[in-house]
């Protein structure tokens, strides 16, 4: 059920292009800042993710996408 809801959300986002264009390419300069990342130190994210896995009984909630301006 939850997977269905999330997939529906993704499809919704895919089909509502105009509605979700809030930031124009020339307004994205701040997203090019290295600090504007969900894991600003990738090595720390990897190491601590490992530690949290061995010290706690939970996992998940990670994405390959960590940010960036997407304005090449």
């Amino acid at each position, binding site marked *: 059920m*939850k*997977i269905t809801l*999330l*997939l529906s*959300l*993704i499809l919704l*986002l*895919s089909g*509502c*292009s*105009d509605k*979700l*264009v*809030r*930031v*124009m*390419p020339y307004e*994205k300069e*701040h*997203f090019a*800042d*290295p*600090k*504007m*990342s*969900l*894991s*600003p*130190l*990738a*090595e*720390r*994210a*990897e*190491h*601590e*993710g*490992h*530690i*949290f*896995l*061995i*010290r*706690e*009984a*939970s*996992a*998940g*909630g*990670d*994405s*390959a*996408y*960590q*940010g*960036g*301006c*997407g*304005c*090449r």
Partner: protein
Amino acid sequence: MQIIKSFFIGLMLMIPFLKTYASELKDSASFGFDTYTDNNDVEVYSPTFELLKTVSKNWLVGVKLRIDTIAAASIRYSSSPALISPDAQATASKRSGFDDVRYAPTAFVSYDDGENTATVGAYYSTELDYIGKAVFANYTRELNQGNTVVGIGFSQSADTWSPNNNRTLPVDNRDERKIDLSVNQLLSSTASIQLVYSYMYSEGFLASPYPYLIQNGSFIGFENYPDTRTGHAFAIKGLKYIDDANVMNFSYRHYTDDWDIDSHTISAELLHDFNDKWMVGARARYYTQSGSNFAKTLGDYTQSDKYVASDYRMTAFDSYNVGIPVTYKPSLESPYSVSFSVDYYWTSDNDYIQNWFGESNIKAVYTTLRINYDF
């Protein structure tokens, strides 16, 4: 041994942390050194090496090697009863002074055409009594002029136990599957938000072969858990550009599984540019979880129990983490950059920790260091 082995279990779930390198297709090499030490005499030192090489405009190959050297000088038993099981005695004698080295190479290929990025790779690790093998893949697609990014990640591991205490396990495999779905949305020119859902499924021998439980002088048994586990995680993360010198990130995650473990994690971090060369941050994290449906209050186990837990992670506890990250880049054009972080982690008091380690809680310090060179 439990703590040592714990460093290797579940590593497959880490694989998605291999970020989508294709978002920045460039050649680079890095050397790193990570450490972990805690009040239970566990010390881990991990040198890492990484090389990324573009092979065309859209393709990149990467290799990475992580070496974990682990030393557990001793495990205290100030409150543990006398060992009465020959198996348990043998296990305990092997735990003292046990050292291990884990070699974990990873190789991957990334593709980036501007709107689509994809990474596929494989991972292998080996140590004395455990072999880990996994494959993983990530895909992200930019939509809405880059305002929206959807992503999917997949990983599958097939690990094998070979316990060095001559214990025969019901099964010797530990297989884990993980699927991540994510949506990233820009909210304004200074803020973005990300939603993530993760599905995780594990099967095989999911406990550690070594920990055991002694209660009132009687050997209850080795740790034993259900042989399957299904978990779900939901996360929301955000980024906020405050001004030219300050950025904040935050996250919340809810985890739940069919062992009835539920957890909540919140974290927040502020990053500050002191000048063009130095960036320093501060962050805090809080974690709380409930116990599994088979973990009992110590003293309530019986030898007829199907499942036995001696690992505090199967019980309710809280943990806290504070840390400082630092990055240095000599100049904007410099190919070199250095990053360093130090964190202090501690748990709430817990009877299982007291029983196994002889300490009321766990206190740990961990650090990371990376020297990166773009060429």
